[in-house]
């Protein structure tokens, strides 16, 4: 077990001949504390898998270094890193039985057979595979196969970290919940660092203590689910986390306070007045209310989701989504909305602007 550290890691895949390399990973410096449960969240193509493969040594980064504790492992092959990794699509060794599949990583490392069978039995128990241990792995359903893949990741005891690359994509929804809580439980039991890649925010937020949000090859924010929700550092985090995501609206500044649609808004904190760049405000749909005075809008769409309704309103060219509780009425004439000042953020060139007095 160890602490994993990225120092200025950049990675570009070999470009087609005659073209400049495109960095899949742009300058990541990041520490993964020993024993943490991390989720790596981001849309497809943002560099999550690249980052994961760099940790496990399947890829060697173009620049920068990786350290396990203080040891530089950048050049070390996968086999010497003691990392377990589970992939998006199930990988099973078709000709082997379920038991042999689970035992494979242990036997390859020369573990005595008695210990192997003890470990395999434990893991099979945990994943409800006990009854299938004697079966050929190729005969299982996709669910079963992915459980084997998970099992092969979990069966080793001496690992520095277990990496999951969207492991539940092929699994049935109800089983997904089960397996995810099982992983979480397991993390608490064995305390090994787990890094879980996903593009599904629910998965990330339920699994992890710390969520690392990636966007366009870089890490934009690291934080607990609550932090990510309440204080997104980047417009992308605001937009990507939450359902529906944060409203990002163009604004100007007047004496350190944002102005949107000719309304001077209060942001709860003053900012420098000489900001230059693209200015925007971010406000979550949860923090917008209908009110007697405020910004005049036009209601476009109301989606009833049961306990609340998602109302889409428009002010000139800006579309705004808001959440309205089922007990609250939607005004039929001259609707006006107002923003909760404590939960309003100001962004300059997509990065959050902190208080001028901080």
């Amino acid at each position: 077990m160890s602490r994993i550290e990225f120092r200025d890691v950049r990675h570009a895949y070999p470009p087609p001949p005659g073209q400049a390399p495109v960095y899949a990973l742009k300058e990541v410096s990041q520490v993964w504390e020993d024993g943490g449960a991390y989720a790596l969240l981001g849309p497809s193509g943002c560099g999550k898998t690249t980052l994961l493969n760099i940790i496990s040594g399947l890829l060697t980064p173009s620049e920068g270094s990786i350290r396990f504790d203080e040891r530089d492992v950048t050049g070390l092959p996968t086999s010497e890193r003691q990392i377990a990794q589970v992939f998006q699509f199930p990988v099973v060794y078709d000709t082997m039985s379920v038991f042999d599949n689970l035992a494979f990583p242990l036997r390859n490392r020369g573990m005595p057979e008695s210990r192997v069978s003890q470990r395999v039995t434990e893991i099979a128990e945990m994943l409800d595979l006990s009854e299938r241990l004697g079966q050929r792995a190729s005969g299982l359903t996709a669910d079963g196969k992915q459980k084997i893949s998970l099992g092969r990741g979990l069966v080793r005891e001496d690992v520095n970290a277990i990496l999951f690359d969207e492991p539940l994509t092929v699994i049935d929804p109800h089983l997904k919940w089960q397996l995810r809580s099982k992983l979480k439980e397991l993390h608490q039991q064995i305390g090994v660092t787990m890094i879980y890649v996903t593009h599904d925010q629910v998965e990330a937020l339920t699994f992890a203590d710390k969520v690392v949000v990636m966007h366009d090859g870089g890490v934009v924010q690291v934080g607990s689910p609550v932090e990510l929700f309440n204080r997104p550092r980047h417009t992308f985090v605001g937009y990507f986390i939450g359902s529906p995501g944060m409203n990002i609206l163009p604004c100007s500044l007047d004496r350190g306070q944002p102005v949107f649609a000719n309304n001077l808004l209060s942001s709860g904190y003053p900012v420098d007045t000489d900001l230059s760049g693209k200015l925007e405000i971010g406000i979550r749909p949860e923090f917008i209310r209908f009110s007697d005075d405020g910004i005049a809008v036009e209601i476009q769409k109301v989606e009833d989701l049961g306990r609340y309704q998602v109302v889409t309103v428009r002010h000139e060219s800006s579309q705004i989504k808001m959440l309205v509780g089922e007990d609250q009425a939607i005004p039929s004439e001259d609707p006006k909305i107002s923003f909760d000042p404590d939960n309003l953020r100001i962004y300059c060139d997509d990065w959050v602007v902190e208080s001028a007095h901080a």
Partner: protein
Amino acid sequence: MRKTTNQKAWWLVVPVLLLVAFNAFIPLMTVVNYSMQETFGNNVFFWEGVTWFEKVLRSERFHDALLRQLLFTGMIIAIEVPLGIAVALAMPRKGPWVSVCLVLMALPLLIPWNVVGAMWNIFALPDIGLLGFTLNSMGLDYNFTQQPVSAWMTTVVMDVWHWTSLVVLLCYAGLCSIPDAYYQAAHIDGASPWAVFRYIQLPKMKRVLTIAILLRFMDSFMIYTEPFVLTGGGPGNTTTFLSIDLVKIALGQFDLGPAAAMSLIYFLVVLLICWVFYTVMMRNEEQ
């Protein structure tokens, strides 16, 4: 819903029926016809029953030819399959060399059988052929027109040269269809290169290998042109394989009855071996 009955659709099958009749069924039945009768020409036939079959099955000559055939096919499969796998494993999966390798591999397959025979005949001539001359000047006594061992070696090497590419290409296709994740998982699991081959590559190649072995079995079991051009079945009868022997009986001696009986036995042997092999290979797949 009322079901309409219209039997006219059967007419649509007629072209295919005619085609199959003329290119397979009628020729086959002609052979069956010949295999049970004796003729001395003038279209006069005498019924013989299964006499020819008994004769062929008891004939020393047929036994020898069959044995030579089995030995030859066994040898070339034993060489071509492992060699084909090895070459396929060594070929690059990505990059500019892929197409170069593929074209080089495909070249022998594009050469007509009789040309291959002629090429190797000249190549192996002991006095002027590059191979024959080189071997002899190295002090080896090599003459495929006179020594059975040399003739066999040359025939086997020629077939390996001509057909290993087929196994290579099929295996290569099988290897290319393995997703990267399998290799990555094997890395993570600490698998040795042998384990990667044994538990990932070989199982994933099983289907294409089955096809490759079947094709090579059928093709080599019916080999005719290449050894005919290279050695003419000699020296003596040493490289007279089944089809060469069959042609000798049918056209050389004009023994149509025994030749027809032999053809049918020959056909059934090929069919039987293919069926057994395929059934055994696919038995596990269905579970």
